[in-house]
């Protein structure tokens, strides 16, 4: 993988265009984040074009989630594994340009009307749904480790650190990595 950092992995300009335009489309469908479009990315990249195999595709996502920064960077890792730095550019620009443009326009539109009943009802109505989604995300993230008491202890320690102290989230993250590396998560 290292040797191809600047290479194109044998992809043609037409392939990069296909990657770019497909990710442009997925950007506008990614309600709830880019992660919700993973099944369709998999269809294009693994099933149809064979640019990556299953293992490389899944490892790309796991790697980005373990690294610091937004989870959407898994798109960059997939782009990199498909076509080096040109793949990164095609995947990331395609994936972010439409949604960020829309967010800017929609946010300005809403900010000008923030006192209106429609906008107040929108933010008020969505607030509990948003908090419910956070709880659902937490529940889903525990799935791979739900059977291990150590995982629940880690969740409890994390809650204590975040709610009861001023410590950085880096401390529980480091503790979790250490506990997992020592084999306490099965």
């Amino acid at each position: 993988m290292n040797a191809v950092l600047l290479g194109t992995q044998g992809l043609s300009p037409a392939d990069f265009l296909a990657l770019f335009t497909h990710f442009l489309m997925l950007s506008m469908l990614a309600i709830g984040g880019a992660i919700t479009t993973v099944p369709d990315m998999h269809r294009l990249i693994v099933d149809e074009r064979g640019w990556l195999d299953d293992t490389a595709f899944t490892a790309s996502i796991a790697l980005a989630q373990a690294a610091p920064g937004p989870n959407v960077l898994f798109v960059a890792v997939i782009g990199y594994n498909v076509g080096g730095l040109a793949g990164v550019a095609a995947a990331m620009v395609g994936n972010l340009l439409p949604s960020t443009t829309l967010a800017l326009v929609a946010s300005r539109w809403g900010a000008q009307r923030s006192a209106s009943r429609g906008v107040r009802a929108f933010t008020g109505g969505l607030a509990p749904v948003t908090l419910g989604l956070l709880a659902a995300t937490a529940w889903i993230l525990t799935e791979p480790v739900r059977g291990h008491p150590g995982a629940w202890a880690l969740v409890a320690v994390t809650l204590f650190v975040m709610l009861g102290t001023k410590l950085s989230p880096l401390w529980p993250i480091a503790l979790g990595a250490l506990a997992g590396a020592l084999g306490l998560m099965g």
Partner: protein
Amino acid sequence: MPESPLAVPASPGHLFTAFTALAMQGFGGVLPVAQRELVERRRWLTSEQFVDILSIGQVLPGPNIVNMALIIGDRFFGWRGALAATSGLLALPLVVVLLLAALYAQFAEVPAVAGALRGMGAVAAGLILSTALKLLPALAGNPMGRIGCAGFAGLTLLAVGVLRWPLVWVVLGLGVVAWFTAWHRLAR
């Protein structure tokens, strides 16, 4: 929890470094760090504003945290702020994740590495849960009241977390019902 007077970032450059700093602390998700940094530490936003912006980021397509950075940056410094916050969020973590991708192949088979990823996953769950708990006070003045809020939050958790219904339908379906309910309550 009383809200003390809000502060503002000094410049787009200040936004860039603040978002770089919070992104680099975000393992398994940036949102918990964003809440701690932007609401609790820097006081650039109240809890209510944070939940409002998160709700907008959630409903629009695209990554929530990227949409949030863009909206927050835009509110302080227009498009220059939006660009500064978003690129701060993405630039350095992008370099780091690509370096890791280049190294990963050699370490993927080591059991300690796989175990560490699982341990970090459990902590990421705890971080997201703590964020939800800390944002609860933002619902205090909600037009739907406590019971309405608990109902919509509970239904969302059930539909997305337990039943695994597609997020887009849950957000659009429950979101529209919640919007209508809040609209109705605001009339009284």
